[in-house]
């Protein structure tokens, strides 16, 4: 097997997809879904999994039609320039807004938990600069760091579970199936929205070392994310029961906060917070890269570097000024965000897919592009 470092391996790609989903979801999902459906929240997250796999199949089938060029130049050749530009700008807007939400979430967390007095602008500038640096290194670099950070995250997740074992009370999970269906749907919807972020596969497609496996990659990425999310929800439920997490802002970290073995192993939540910050950085890198990629490729801009800086400035300002306070932001996260994610990630690709099915030309060689 020839080693090709310029391309993204299949495992790296799957990890990349799951890293695009979990960092922010791990913060919001426990609160929202336990708040909605109590001890059955983990079931609702698991129920979102098959839907996520459905998305993965859609993305996979779209990506596999692509002969290995950038998603937008391929759309261009199949559906015309107008469609590719519109889709490109729409996706660029999607990546941009998710990047800003990610930063905002990180900054909110940091100024709530760690650095109350540090100006918010500084806290958001640091991640942006790092994301710009990573994005200018290319998606392969991001894929590599995401694999490393992922391994670290899994290790610390396992460590966390081990340390929290003695606080877990299995009876918190019973009775199973207590919540009525509408509440279950309400609690599962955010997870569905987040899992749809696997649409990252579109921009990964031309960089994959084995593009034929893209469906499998998407399914693996979504499954990793779904399992991880339900694990975190389960972890929170086992420690705080069905009532408390709904009123907590960061129940997953509160669970780490109450770790206590004697008077030596205690107050270790900061270690977990640091690992989480690293995962958020990776997510941010992915989405800053995605924004620039969608923007420059759909408009066929050759010199991407100036846009990298302007776009990141835009993300910076967007994250700082779009939501005046935390309450507005939380409201956005709980209600608007899911609809937005599903529109950009499910409806748009589905329309494109339909368009391609209708416009499929008999000779397959027409899709070839220089």
């Amino acid at each position: 097997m020839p080693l090709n470092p310029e391309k993204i391996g299949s495992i790296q790609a799957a990890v990349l997809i799951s890293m695009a989903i979990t960092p922010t979801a791990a913060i919001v999902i426990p609160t929202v879904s336990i708040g909605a459906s109590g001890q059955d929240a983990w079931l609702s997250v698991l129920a979102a999994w098959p839907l996520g796999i459905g998305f993965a199949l859609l993305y996979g089938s779209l990506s596999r039609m692509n002969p290995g060029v950038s998603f937008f130049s391929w759309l261009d050749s199949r559906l015309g320039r107008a469609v590719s530009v519109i889709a490109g700008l729409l996706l660029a807007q999607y990546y941009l807004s998710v990047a800003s939400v990610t930063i905002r979430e990180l900054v909110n967390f940091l100024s709530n938990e760690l650095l109350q007095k540090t100006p918010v602008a500084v806290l958001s500038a640091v991640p942006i600069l790092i994301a710009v640096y990573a994005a200018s290194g290319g998606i392969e670099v991001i894929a590599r760091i995401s694999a490393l950070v992922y391994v670290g995250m899994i290790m610390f997740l396992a460590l966390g579970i081990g340390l929290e074992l003695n606080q877990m009370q299995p009876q918190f999970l019973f009775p199973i199936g207590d919540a009525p269906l509408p509440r279950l749907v309400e609690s599962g919807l955010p997870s569905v929205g987040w899992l749809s972020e696997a649409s990252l596969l579109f921009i990964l497609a031309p960089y994959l070392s084995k593009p034929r496996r893209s469906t499998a990659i998407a399914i693996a990425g979504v499954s990793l994310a779904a399992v991880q999310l339900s694990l975190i929800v389960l972890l929170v439920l086992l420690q705080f029961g069905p009532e408390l997490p709904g009123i907590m802002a960061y129940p997953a970290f509160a669970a780490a906060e109450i770790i206590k073995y004697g008077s030596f192993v205690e107050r270790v939540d900061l270690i977990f917070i640091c690992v989480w910050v690293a995962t958020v950085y990776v997510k941010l890198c992915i989405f800053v890269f995605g924004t620039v990629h969608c923007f420059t490729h759909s408009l066929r801009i050759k010199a991407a570097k100036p846009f990298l800086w302007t776009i990141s400035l835009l993300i910076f300002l967007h994250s700082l000024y779009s939501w005046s306070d935390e309450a507005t932001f939380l409201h956005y996260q709980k209600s608007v965000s899911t609809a937005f994610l599903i529109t950009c990630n499910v409806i748009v690709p589905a329309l494109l897919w339909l368009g391609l099915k209708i416009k499929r030309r008999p000779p397959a060689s027409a899709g070839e592009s220089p």
Partner: protein
Amino acid sequence: MKLWNVLFRRKRDQGSSQQRKAVKQDGRSGKAVSRDLEEGLSKDVDENLRTIVAELGGSDDLTIRKIDAAGTDSVVVAFIYIDNLVDSAMVNQMLLHPLMSEIGESRSGKSSEEWYRTVRDRVLAVGRVHEMRTPEEALACILEGQTIVFLQGSAAALAADTSGGDKRAVEEPGSQTVIRGPKESFTESIKTNLSLIRRRIKSPRLRVERKTLGKLTQTQIALVYLQGIAKASIVEEVRRRIDRIDTDSILESAYIEEFIQDAPITPFPTIENTERPDAAAAGILEGQIAIIVDGTPFALLAPVSFVRFFQSSEDFYQRYDIATFLRLIRYVAFFVSMLLPAMFIAITTFHQEMLPTPLLISLAAQREGVPFPAIVEALLMEITFEVLREAGVRMPKVIGPAISIVGALVLGQSAVQAGLISAAIVIVVSFTAIASFVIPAINMSIAARLIRFVMMILGGTLGLFGIMSGLMVLLIHLASLRSFGVPYLTPLAPFVWTNWKDTFVRMPHWVMKKRPPTIADGSNLVRQGDDQMPKPPGRKSKF
């Protein structure tokens, strides 16, 4: 015709001597000098000698020995060499002695052409003899320590390799020491160094490519690799990068390293250096390419990945279990040396809740009355330590004990007693310093030292979040580095399983069946046969 030629040349020589002086002053344009040296040698010995002497500006270390035919005044043979570059015993025994005894009998009645061939083929008792056609060639050989033999009447000269002179014997390595393992080190002589490698790899596939670099220093360098094990593409890339170098001096392999490395602006080394022939041989056997430079005991090895800098050659000479343990210790030490002061600052000034209560109280008690903030305190101590270390390296060996007394007693103990700094910071700085010596590659430990200061400032302003951000930048940077096309973080990301047997752990030799596929040629990876685990007859089930 000949006379005219001589006259003409002489005129031109005089004419150009002014110009040559000017050229010498600016010191760089060797090309301008060589232009009129490119013409052929004259048939007249004196003429040739004059050219050479003029070219070297009549340096006093130039030795000329003329031999005339019996009974005449006319010079028949002349030797020219630079005094201390040649092995004078060899010149006397192998060149002078045979020639002088031959000169009477065999020269008579021969044409100058025949005489030349006799001398070349039968008289000079030296292994490497080759013909010189121009003064330029001759000059280069003289500067390399060869002896030039001019024969009256022939327009070619003979260069006999008599280079020798004073050089250091093979000694124990000064920087990369081992407890168990070969005690030989490279020396300043490229010949010795090549022989040290050859002696370790007696394979016909070992290739040595010599090149000369540096217009003034004319330094010899050699690429050494194993044909079929080193990737051809990487060998070609190394060759290409070396041929690009246009400089007037190469005094140490670091000069070359800076000209050919992939990332010029990074604290991390992307080319390995070693003064151990066994380490170089091990690298070559894994597919690395060694670059040996005359005049320095440090050879370069490329390509290299990050984890390679945490391997010591001793890892492979000790038992694998202890080697694994020590290797893990080194990784820990690297992070300690990079992060410990920063973590200390971040935790004591931002995240006091992370400390166990008794520790917090005793640290707080130490800090009572200390005038500086923790970050300033730590920076001061770190800089003090760097000063001490630099002093330790530079100062004459005789004053060594004085510095250690002043450093340890005055700076450490008294500063704490005087309440200028807290005792904890002294402990942290000392441990950091010791940890930084554990990393086998000095250039990697320097990287950790530099990053330490950045991390301390980050930790002092944003706490653990700052350190985390710094680490992330570092990770991104490392992931974007490559060494001759090989990603720097290789066995980790991209993940390469074969290399993992020799990354954090050192598996037994019989487990490491294959060479690292990232560096070595993919078609020839197998290092040893299957099933090499020792199976002594006593190893049966005891049940």
